């Protein structure tokens, strides 16, 4: 009997010869990520549980991103506790101002193909794009992992998503995953693994795959994997030999298989206030906007900034509209500077901010006023996420977002 991608990674990790969905197994954790919001709670629970030493400091990554830059005096307390914990435990992988955790984890090689990684953030599913079993957990479980190096998981059923053919020019990975979320619904993959494959996925950049795995948690998925290939090997700086085992068997058993023809896909939006409330952009053309946000662990990468710069070349942001661009990491910001994207964006009237979670986590970075409407490239449009509950949040691709920023209203990407 064949196995799916997630089953193979769990088998490799646990040493079990076979696993099947529903089985509860104990994994040896290869890496964990803790971010600034939760480090005080992790540190507290860790002590409360009676632990004194982290099982392996090299496997722990601490990243400040939600509160960077700080916007209240309380924010700094999280850094102070995090710095003290890092000193006490001898943690060396600490990033204080380098960007968003889910960008840094794969970018810095902390999350690599075939590994088992947990993070104190729901979008930890992102690293599935490089063939890593990664999933979000709470701070109490993180404290237990820090003490034991282990975590129990229920082997998930797998939903295979096959996408084949060539994407239309104005359709991006964001449009694909939004469409999938609309079809599966917000709870359509709860407790389950997604496995993306097909010629379209093979043709996508690693950055685009990260976008898809990132948002898979929005349909409840535990993880969302893409079998690693040459692109992954180059991105993660591993050899093809090292990743040869990381693929599903031809006779793997899936709970279901969804098929998409890339040529049929169109630019779409998630409308307020559910991520699965998906409509074609064409249906909403003309919706007036007050702000556009391009950034986040979903769509703050170089190709996203390139798409935005392309859409705004020799154009300006519509009068009265704020365009906020937040690169996902320091290195992306630098690359975008070198490529000239930042100059194009600032000249067009964009407000380019320090890399971090920014507006996406709703703590700063362009909060909206009563009754305003924002089009954003991030992953959630929940009620009250970016300001008062009356704020309407639409989610879309960077190309749609940038074109709409120039128009002052929702328009089709070119």
């Amino acid at each position, binding site marked *: 009997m064949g196995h799916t991608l997630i089953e193979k990674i769990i088998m490799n990790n646990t040493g079990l010869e076979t696993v099947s969905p529903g089985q509860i197994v104990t994994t040896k954790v290869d890496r964990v990520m803790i971010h600034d919001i939760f480090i005080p709670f992790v540190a507290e629970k860790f002590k409360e*549980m009676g632990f004194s030493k982290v099982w392996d400091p090299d496997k722990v990554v601490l990243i400040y991103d939600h509160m960077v830059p700080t916007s209240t005096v309380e924010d700094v307390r999280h850094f102070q506790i995090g710095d003290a914990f890092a000193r006490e435990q001898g943690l060396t992988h600490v990033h204080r101002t380098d960007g968003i955790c889910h960008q840094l984890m794969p970018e810095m090689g902390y999350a690599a193909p075939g590994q088992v990684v947990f993070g104190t*953030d*729901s979008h930890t599913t992102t690293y599935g794009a490089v063939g890593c079993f990664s999933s979000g*957990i*709470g701070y109490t*479980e993180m404290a237990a992992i820090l003490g034991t190096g282990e975590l*129990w998981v229920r082997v998930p059923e797998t939903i295979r998503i096959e996408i084949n053919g060539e994407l239309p020019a104005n359709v991006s990975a964001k449009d694909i995953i939004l469409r999938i979320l609309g079809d599966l619904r917000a*709870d359509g993959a709860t407790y389950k693994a997604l496995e993306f494959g097909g010629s379209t996925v093979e043709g996508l950049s690693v950055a685009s795959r990260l976008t898809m795995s990132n948002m898979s948690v929005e349909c409840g998925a535990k993880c969302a994997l893409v079998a690693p290939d040459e692109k992954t090997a180059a991105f993660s700086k591993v050899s093809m030999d090292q990743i040869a085992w990381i693929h599903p068997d031809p006779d793997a058993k899936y709970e279901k298989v969804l098929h998409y023809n890339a040529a049929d896909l169109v630019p779409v939006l998630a409308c307020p206030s559910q991520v699965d409330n998906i409509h074609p952009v064409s249906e909403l053309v003309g919706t007036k906007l007050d702000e556009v946000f391009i950034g986040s662990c979903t769509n703050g990468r170089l190709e996203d900034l390139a798409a935005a710069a392309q859409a705004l070349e020799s154009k300006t942001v519509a009068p009265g509209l704020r365009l906020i661009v937040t690169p996902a990491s320091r290195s992306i910001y630098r690359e975008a500077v070198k490529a000239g994207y930042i100059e194009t964006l600032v000249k067009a009237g964009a407000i380019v901010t320090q890399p971090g979670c920014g507006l996406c986590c709703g703590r700063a970075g362009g909060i909206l006023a009563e009754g305003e409407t924002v089009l954003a490239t991030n992953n959630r449009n929940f*009620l*009250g996420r970016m300001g008062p509950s009356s704020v309407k949040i639409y989610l879309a691709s960077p190309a749609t977002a940038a074109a709409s920023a120039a128009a002052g209203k929702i328009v089709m990407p070119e």
Partner: protein
Amino acid sequence: MAQFTGKVWLLGDDIDTDIIIPTEYLALPTVDDMKQYAFSPLRPELAGQIRPGDIIVAGKNFGCGSSREQAPEIIKHLGVACVIAKSYARIFFRNAINNGLLLIECPLHDDLQEGEEITVFPGEKILAGGKSYPISPLPQNLLDILEAGGLVKAMQKRNGLL
């Protein structure tokens, strides 16, 4: 776990973690400081109305969204006896068990009125409006954590502190 009776607060589908506790309050020092803002984007008055022993009954996908563990912790701190939903998002589910908050999966929501009293027989059934709804027990490894009073206590036991 013994049976208990409580008053019902009804919430809909897809109650996300930003509704349970908006991000702007996550930097408050303690969960007790945060709990007054529970559910505030949807029902700002609700946190003040919930009394210990009350029961939250919701639709599908309760707790979807972020991994913020304050969400189940706050519900626990408000004194809620248990949450009964059609389904749960997975991180919320794990976090709730790890904090000793009982979650029950049962499609009860559409049959109830807010304010009704219902009786829960954990792992067995729920009695509501004269009807009996069967519920299934949790897997043993989760019951162990729940019965220890959450994952912290379970780890304390492992480390010989209890």
